[in-house]
């Protein structure tokens, strides 16, 4: 407990927020960097994955290929990818740029599968009768996409982006491995200094940031879940690695039983 209190004391120490502190201070600058990396990578990933996901959802073409391909992408270890990219890119561009570019590419690759899945699952969830009606009354394919499929699948599209943002915030920590900024520097400097408060403080910051941003996106998702788009409301589809989710579910009854047994004693 003391450990946590120390970490929070470190977090609340105004000295850690004074401009011009020695790296990794001040903290707000590292939060800013962390958000910036997240924003840039999710934005680039969206630019790639959303049009592709919407196209697949609308036409049904290439679905199988993309599912297996994104499965492969998910299996890539981000840290290994980051190191490889850093070495390859570092051979041609200056050190600091290479670190940024390599980090962003690694995070973009991490973010793409969730956004892609949100895109095509969203469009596919739209009632085919509704799409048929749109076509029958003389909408062009683009009008069907823009006026029917996207509005109705917006909640699922955003939940895909939400999943990607969470993953990127959690993973952007590794950018500090190649001497880039972000909240990872707080943790790695803590490790370097053998300063437990700082390590835990950094970890808490990452978690808090993830929760705050996720909460904000949840709010946005609720706002776009308009009346009438009932069928497009997210049906607890977990865009992250599904195996974890189902394992957790499978475990639950066991714990439940244990608790019952204990309470009887």
């Amino acid at each position, binding site marked *: 407990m003391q450990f946590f209190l120390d970490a929070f004391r470190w977090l609340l120490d105004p000295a850690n927020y004074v401009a011009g502190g020695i790296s990794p201070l001040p903290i707000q600058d590292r939060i800013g960097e962390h958000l910036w990396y997240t924003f840039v990578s999710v934005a680039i990933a969206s630019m790639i994955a959303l049009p592709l996901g919407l196209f697949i959802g609308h036409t049904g073409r290439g679905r199988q290929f993309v599912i297996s391909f994104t499965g492969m992408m998910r299996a890539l270890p981000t840290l290994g990818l980051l190191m490889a990219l850093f070495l390859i890119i570092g051979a041609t561009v200056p050190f600091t740029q290479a670190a940024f570019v390599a980090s962003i590419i690694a995070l973009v690759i991490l973010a793409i599968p969730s956004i892609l899945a949100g895109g095509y699952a969203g469009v596919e969830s739209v*009632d085919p009768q509704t799409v048929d009606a749109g*076509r*029958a009354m003389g909408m062009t394919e683009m009008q069907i996409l823009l006026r029917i499929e996207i509005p109705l699948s917006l909640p699922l599209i955003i939940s895909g982006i939400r999943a990607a943002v969470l993953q990127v915030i959690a993973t952007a920590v590794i950018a500090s491995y190649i001497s880039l900024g972000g909240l990872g520097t707080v943790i790695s400097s803590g490790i370097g200094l053998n300063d437990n408060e700082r390590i835990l403080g950094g970890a808490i910051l990452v978690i808090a940031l993830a929760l705050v941003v996720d909460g904000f996106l949840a709010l946005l998702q609720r706002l776009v879940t*308009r009346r*009438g788009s009932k069928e497009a409301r997210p049906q607890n589809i977990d865009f992250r690695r599904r195996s974890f989710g189902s394992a957790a579910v499978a475990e639950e009854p066991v714990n439940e039983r244990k608790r019952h047994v204990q309470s009887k004693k």
Partner: protein
Amino acid sequence: MIEFQNVTKQFPDGTFAVKDFSLVLPSHKVTVFVGSSGAGKTTLLRMINRMVNPTSGKVLIDGEDVAGLNPVALRRKIGYVLQATGLLPHRKIADNIASVPRLNGVPKSKAREEALILLDTVGLDRSLADRYPDQLSGGQQQRVGVARALASDPNILLMDEPFGAVDPIVRLELQDELNRLQGEISKTMVFVTHNIDEAFAIADQVVILRAGGEIAQVGSPAEILANPADDFVETFIGADKGKRTLHLQRREEDGVTLIVDAEGRPAGILGEDKG
């Protein structure tokens, strides 16, 4: 006038949805395609607005081959009502009705005004204009579907089992409404159903289809009832079981003349002749 000329639709697996189908659908009349599932009714209907393209043969509207027309422009000129209503769930009723005029570039306020008038036309209260489709009953949604199909004042109205999903009482009500409406607007209407009673209730011309879009008989309801072409038609309209052959039976106790079917089940009573 809509004309089918030797129209065939073959699926990639070799089966025929429709085989060498030829028929003229007169203007300002209601033609009903009736047949069991898989008789190609919907396929024929959807060929008119190019939602399905025939493998061979032609579909002509007023002498013009639809294959030469832009499908999007063609569809905006033809009203279409679907069984599942196909209303856009994220749009209000008035916006749903105004869909096609809006696609054609009619200004929003004008389109809304027309949508409100169309609500009157199909017998719905204007207060429903700002509701969403899922707040309406099945029958009301179907009326909205009809209003939407009428919104751009098309000459042709295609109706694909529009009353298939509503309960029998509402269904009869909607059929009556449709007859009333057709009396006012007099469109060239093509209606698909598998219910022969519904076909007789609304049709000027009934087309009874066998599997593969083969015509078993074409005629007015009276012609078909009077002279079923063959056993298939007899079975289809229920004439073989005596459902269509009614007899008079006088009840001695109150002097009322009953109308009964071949099984002796009462179907109604004999009224005074009009006029």
